[in-house]
């Protein structure tokens, strides 16, 4: 294992009612979050390929954990997202190296498909910083009912020399989605957008 992992946390949220209206079946989403050592903390390093390899490894591990926590077959996952928070001795580019070059492929491999861009967010911050992981439909980015966000945080991370990396999956859209736009039954699934 390339990543030095200090801890892994999973979060599963289930919404049963909203504004007094029952949500049946409930909307459910899960996030898996790893706290890892930042091998490049405190110094400028030109070649970030080690972090890219860590991203590939975490893409698989975190997606497997998140799907297992959600308790559904991987093929039932409808939307996904990813995020990272770099501790104060690192740079935002470290988050980019983990998230963008190689993390996505294993996520899609675990889920079976995933034509759409995986929406992402990143920041630098101290311990307990909140990550708002963006969520979007995995096969068609324009599905409006599935635009969402999931807040996660770990009170003791990231320490200055750490990075927090998160993958979120959901088997449903927002609880009472009603602002129109492309619906999931209209997905063509060719270009990842519609």
């Amino acid at each position: 294992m390339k990543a030095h992992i200090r801890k892994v946390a999973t979060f599963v949220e289930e919404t049963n009612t909203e504004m007094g209206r029952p949500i049946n079946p409930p909307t459910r989403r899960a996030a898996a979050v790893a706290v890892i050592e930042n091998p490049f903390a405190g110094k400028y390093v030109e070649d970030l390929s080690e972090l890219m390899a860590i991203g590939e490894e975490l893409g698989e591990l975190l997606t497997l954990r998140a799907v297992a926590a959600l308790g559904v077959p991987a093929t039932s996952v409808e939307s996904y997202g990813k995020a990272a928070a770099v501790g104060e001795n690192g740079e935002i580019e470290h988050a980019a190296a983990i998230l963008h070059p190689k993390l996505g492929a294993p996520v899609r491999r675990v889920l079976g498909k995933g034509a759409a861009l995986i929406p992402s967010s990143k920041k630098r911050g101290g311990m307990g910083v909140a990550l708002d992981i963006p969520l979007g439909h995995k096969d068609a980015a324009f599905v409006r009912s599935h635009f969402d966000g999931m807040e996660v945080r770990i009170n003791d991370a990231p320490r200055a020399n750490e990075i927090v990396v998160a993958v979120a999956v959901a088997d449903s859209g927002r609880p009472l989605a009603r602002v129109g736009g492309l619906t999931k039954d209209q997905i063509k699934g060719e270009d990842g957008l519609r």
Partner: protein
Amino acid sequence: MPEVQVRKKLTIVEEIFHEGGPSSSMPLRRAAALAVIHNPFAGAFVKDIAGFMDDLKPLGLEMARSLVAALGGDTTVVEGYGKGAIVGASGEIEHGALWHVPGGYAMREILGGAKAIVASTKKVGGPGTRLDVPITHINASYVRSHFDAMEVGLADAPRADEILLALVMTTGPRVHARVGGLKASEIKGEDGLR
């Protein structure tokens, strides 16, 4: 007494491999179950509230079972526990106290008659309030290695007329416990204290 209305649930599982020291072959796992319920007493002083404790019993049992499931389904791995509540702005701290009996006895029942009092905390607060749920050994409150706490919370709860209820279970001592005191191996198990 009113029916318990659950708006949403959150399950958190942490797996802690190390905290700067040697990695453990048996990582510490900590799980929290949160439920956001409607506060039937919000907005006015209600003198007689105690009957709501009975109404909360099924939810307590369901949350305790979900924690055991989140930790792998085997009750014998559970060594620590705790509970807590956050009451929304239109309620009072006494509403949080309603959780002591149904939350605590649910865990002790599911764990087969754990002997120690369930450590607890509570507060009144708004959405996003964080709660440090205290944790102690399930059979002997003085076991020093198992004194711990898990921070929990939800970005959108509790609303003013809600209560956030929490139960926590852990599988062992702090990851690098080394400050002496009563050890788990020295428990007499008669009085729930030592």
